[in-house]
């Protein structure tokens, strides 16, 4: 149908498969805007020490709860800190926390998924059952359980959200492996006497990679949201860290008088998640063989 048709057209117009893939991915307004916005936020976070007009932890650089002005683009907070500087710097924490979380979930989730899918049998059946049950908990509740076990702090937030998302990753990877396992080349490798570990690492892992990339991108937005949520519930970032969730939480009380302390960090968080989701969305369309999208 149209999917294979597109593929055929694309194949004739592009020289390398990577180039073709990139073109399909980014010659899409959503993905393009998403990438640009995300890169801008990341770049701003990286060069924050040079572009932020003020030290983001310095108190009393302006009066407290000053409205946005030319001097303080996004106003000041209760302690007279510059909200603009804090929002820029906030990306350093919020974005890297999300990425670290996803890496952790990917690592552990794919290990479990590949193991279960490959080993099969009773262990797999029970493992799958357990994963299903774990999926019944909202990851945020699971994460709160874990934070209460480990204590408050950014590293613990990464561990908590990372572990809480493992079941989702494990499930997807497991079902991908189940399909792959039956394929000829795995059978061939086995016939050639390859060890289980070797088959898992050398043959299964590379083949689930594309799935992992899509999943990772799709879940990155969620991960950023979850880590920010924990900080919002005062279970994450420690003062004076300018994490967006924590800023929202402290801005909440002054919402009526200084809405800027709440609006801007939230907007930054929303834009980050939205841009990541735009890219992830397109990525999954491009990589999904069933995709009916012909652009």
């Amino acid at each position, binding site marked *: 149908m149209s999917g294979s048709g597109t593929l055929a057209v694309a194949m004739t117009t592009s020289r390398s498969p990577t180039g073709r893939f990139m073109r399909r991915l980014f010659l899409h307004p959503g993905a393009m805007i998403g990438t640009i916005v995300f890169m801008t936020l990341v770049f701003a976070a990286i060069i924050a020490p040079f572009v932020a007009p003020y030290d983001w932890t310095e108190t009393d650089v302006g009066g407290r709860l000053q409205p946005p002005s030319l001097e303080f683009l996004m106003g000041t907070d209760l302690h007279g800190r510059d909200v603009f500087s804090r929002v820029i710097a906030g990306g350093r924490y919020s974005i890297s926390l999300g990425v670290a979380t996803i890496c952790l979930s990917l690592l552990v989730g794919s290990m479990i998924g590949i193991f279960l899918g490959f080993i099969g049998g009773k262990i797999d059946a029970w493992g799958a059952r357990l994963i299903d049950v774990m999926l019944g908990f909202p990851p*945020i*509740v699971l994460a709160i359980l874990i934070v209460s076990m480990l204590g408050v702090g950014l590293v613990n937030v990464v561990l908590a959200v990372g572990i809480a998302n493992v079941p989702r990753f494990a499930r997807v990877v497991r079902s991908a492996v189940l399909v792959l396992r039956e394929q000829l080349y795995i059978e061939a490798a086995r016939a050639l006497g390859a060890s289980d570990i070797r088959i898992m690492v050398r043959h299964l892992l590379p083949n689930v990679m594309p799935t992992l990339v899509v999943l990772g991108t799709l879940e990155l937005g969620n991960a950023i949201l979850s880590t920010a949520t924990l900080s919002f519930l005062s279970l994450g970032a420690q003062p004076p860290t300018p994490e967006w969730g924590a800023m929202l939480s402290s801005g909440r009380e002054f919402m009526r008088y200084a809405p800027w302390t709440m609006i801007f960090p939230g907007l930054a968080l929303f834009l980050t998640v939205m841009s990541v989701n735009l890219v992830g969305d397109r990525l999954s369309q491009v990589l999904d063989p069933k995709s009916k999208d012909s652009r």
Partner: protein
Amino acid sequence: MSFIARRIMSIIPVILFTWSMVFIVLQVIPGDPVNLMLAGVPASEEVRQRERERLGLDKPVVERYFTFLGKAATGDLGEGFRSRRPVTVMIQEQMWPTIELALGGLCFGVMFGFVLGVCAGIRPNSWVDSTCMVLALVGVSLPSFWIGMILIYVFGNLLMWVPITGRGFGALILPSITVGLFVAGGFARLIRSSIIEAMNQDYIRTARAKGLSRTRIVLKHALRNAMIPPVTLLGIQFAVLIGGAVVTENVFARPGLGTMLVDAVLAKDMPLVQALIVYKTAVYILVNLVIDLAYGAIDPRIRVEQGS
């Protein structure tokens, strides 16, 4: 019938397993439940020791595990540490506000999601489709604590359209929208792809060839067959929501099972945590069972036995 009975019976080992896991985790979590319960109270050491004895915390872990298990087998899940009341009663009390919010959230979610999904699905790849899908993405990208606060600020404080506290229909609107926005994103997407798929089926082509209007076809024929994936999603969302929506409850200061669980965990109120986990697990499995059964109702071609 035996299928359903078998499915329900199979819940028991799962619950026993989760229950035991949670018991172990609660032993590992640092903190003495008595100190946590008494919070900042300058109660004397004698009072603290008495409380430990009253709660049976002075007994060895293994003994406690089996006492607890024995009681649970007879249906007695124990009393909350601080409240000193049966945990089953405490859960029942919080059940209604939770269900209320779950249903409200689903209503808004389905409403938004349906409109977006159908608009997008009827004309795939048009600008309408793109716009709808971007809006659906906005729904899942909005931090619920942020949009919740903004809704309160705009509709509660500035416009004063809805009550902020208390209960009843009015006070349910904003929290439901907050939950609904999130639900809508995934729902819209599934509706869209299901419709596109259904539109490509032969019988729809036939219907179109007969000259029926596109909207009419979608609403009368395509939708019915396109409903299975979205209904599954809704079922799972409902199962999760009925366990409590922590953040929304927090922002709107609503009672609910999510908040109750978080508080219980932070206070190490062991019987309450255990009971809530059992409840959540059971509800999740049961809702999944109901979804499987619902497949049969939506599409008679699927027999229940295949639903597992």
